[in-house]
């Protein structure tokens, strides 16, 4: 890793008091990058897209897809409306980072969205924020109003002839609306049922028009890249997954919270140095690296594992949202897995049978095991169920439900064995 994390200064949430106020943001160079892009001849929509692509800014919403590449999928403008749907649904258990941006640095996200809007010839940005974040929705709406008042949103932005509107839309409690096609259905005023893909959003998104969906943190990175260049950006953190990232760390550490550091941090450094070690000096039993859907790693599997896509894939997990849940040696993995399964069962939209019935069956079987009424063959049954669920549904919620089951049982089998009776006959 080329950046020394100990001397790293936060870039997404810099240490500047009252940065959420527009005049403070402007005094610290805010909206200057936007102005430069809109008013200088050196920048074109293509050049902006290419810079973001070269920076290898990977989506911070879970899948880690190159943002510039995604933008380049948008078809040529035809004069009709085109949209960005900014994803602030943030409902994956263990994830609580995007709201720090709404609270502490909303204008950097707004500036990033306008730059993205310019790059893709967007007419309106809809910012979808989970309904539970009412306080943050209000804070963010204020920031949008201020940006309008200063002429950064609306008609003829910075006298450049470019127009862009930004609207805030509140969810109302549904994890599935974080899935991009469900989010669009919800924005269109419907139940949040994910759509069958293709067509992809770039072809047929909101109201049938070209649409790009990006996570809030992803877009907040854009002004940094456009200000300092893609080379500067790729020099931060892990080579194949660069940039600063908001690590939301919860569970049994001494100082949980959201921390901003480069990608590629050693998990052990995050636990021991950044979060002040484990509560009560206990041992680490498990780490969920990026929200509840990412496979848990064993505490004795963490040596040298870093928080970036490659390192985590090698270790047998995923970066996800970088919402890390740290569990100590006293944690009962049967209880934890049951609670995760309960979540996915509760949040399944019900369109696909493998998901609707499968998540229910996972939960039911785990309740049985939790209550001491399970048998060893139930463990095999659970793994078999995962195989039947994975990859057979409209959206990835079903996979997100299956992965933790598969990997918690295989990696923490001893916890499960302790709770079940031996079957007379194993499942074939």
């Amino acid at each position, binding site marked *: 890793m080329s950046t020394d994390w100990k001397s790293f200064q936060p870039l997404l949430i810099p240490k500047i008091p009252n940065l959420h106020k527009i005049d403070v943001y402007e005094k610290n160079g805010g909206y200057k990058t936007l102005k430069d892009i809109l008013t200088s001849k050196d920048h074109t929509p293509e050049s902006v897209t290419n810079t973001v692509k070269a920076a290898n800014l990977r989506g911070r919403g879970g899948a880690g897809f190159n943002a510039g590449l995604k933008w380049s999928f948008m078809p040529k403008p035809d004069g009709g409306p085109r949209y960005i749907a900014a994803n602030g649904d943030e409902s994956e258990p263990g994830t609580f980072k995007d709201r720090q941006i709404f609270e502490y640095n909303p204008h950097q996200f707004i500036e990033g969205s306008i730059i993205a809007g310019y790059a893709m010839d967007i007419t309106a940005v809809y910012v979808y924020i989970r309904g539970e974040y009412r306080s943050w929705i209000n804070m963010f709406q204020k920031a949008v109003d201020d940006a309008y008042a200063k002429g950064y949103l609306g008609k003829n932005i910075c006298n450049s002839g470019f127009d862009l509107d930004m609207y805030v*839309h*509140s*969810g109302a409690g549904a994890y599935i609306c974080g899935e991009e096609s469900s989010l669009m259905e919800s924005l269109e005023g419907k139940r949040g049922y994910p759509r069958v893909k293709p067509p992809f959003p770039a072809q047929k998104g909101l109201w049938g028009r070209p649409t790009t969906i990006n996570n809030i943190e992803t877009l907040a990175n854009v002004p940094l890249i456009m200000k300092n260049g893609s080379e500067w950006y790729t020099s931060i953190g892990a080579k194949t997954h660069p940039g600063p990232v908001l690590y939301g760390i919860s569970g049994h550490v001494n100082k949980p919270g959201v921390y901003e550091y480069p990608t590629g941090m050693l998990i052990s450094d995050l636990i021991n140095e950044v979060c002040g070690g484990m509560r009560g000096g206990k041992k680490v039993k498990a780490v969920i690296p990026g929200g509840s859907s990412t496979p848990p790693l064993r505490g004795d599997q963490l040596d040298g594992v870093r928080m970036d896509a490659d390192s985590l894939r090698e270790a047998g997990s995923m970066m996800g949202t970088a919402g890390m849940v740290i569990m100590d040696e006293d944690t009962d993995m049967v209880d934890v897995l049951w609670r995760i399964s309960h979540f996915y069962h509760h949040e399944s939209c019900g369109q696909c049978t493998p998901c609707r019935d499968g998540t229910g069956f996972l939960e039911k079987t785990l309740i049985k095991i939790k209550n001491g009424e399970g048998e060893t063959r139930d463990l095999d049954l659970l793994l078999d169920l995962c195989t039947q669920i994975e990859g057979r549904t409209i959206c990835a919620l079903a996979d997100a439900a299956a992965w933790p089951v598969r990997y918690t049982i295989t990696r923490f089998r001893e916890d499960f064995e302790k709770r079940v009776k031996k079957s007379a006959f194993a499942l074939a």
Partner: protein
Amino acid sequence: MSNEQQYTFSKEELAEIEKIKAKYPDKKPPVMPVLWMAQEKFGHVEPEVQRLVAETLDLPEAHVYGVATFYTQYYKEKMGKYVLDVCTCLSCQICGGYDILHYLEEKLGIKAGETTEDGKFSIQSVECLGACGYAPMMQITNDVYCNHLTKEKVDTILDDLKKDKLPEFEQIPFPQHQNESSKS
């Protein structure tokens, strides 16, 4: 006054709804924001309220019903004045979320999903609220977050709510900013 409450929007609210409509290119999208407005005003979105929303937006009642029932934050029936949504999901679970839930159940004499007889409190056990680092936590009536809960903190919150005093918004400083300032 009759028992049947008449649900209506005021002139000001109707003007507000016109502003909401202007944000979208189609007539369906305002359904969520207007359901929110209605719930804010009436405390729930029972079928009568859904009808009002449907009529106001010129949408089929069935569509509004479909939306209202899909999203958990819309109250499809009357709830207590204060709805205590205790997070028992992953991070809160492992940090004592269920202890907080059970403590509240014991104190108020009701179970999760129920409302006290005086109509003052409802308790719900809910999914992750995006405050995992500040577990255990709860949200009051879709609004204020109460973080780092202990039994003592719950006692104070309940005493205050009985006097209709809502907790204030609790700003949780970014730890990195704090550490550095305490060092320098």
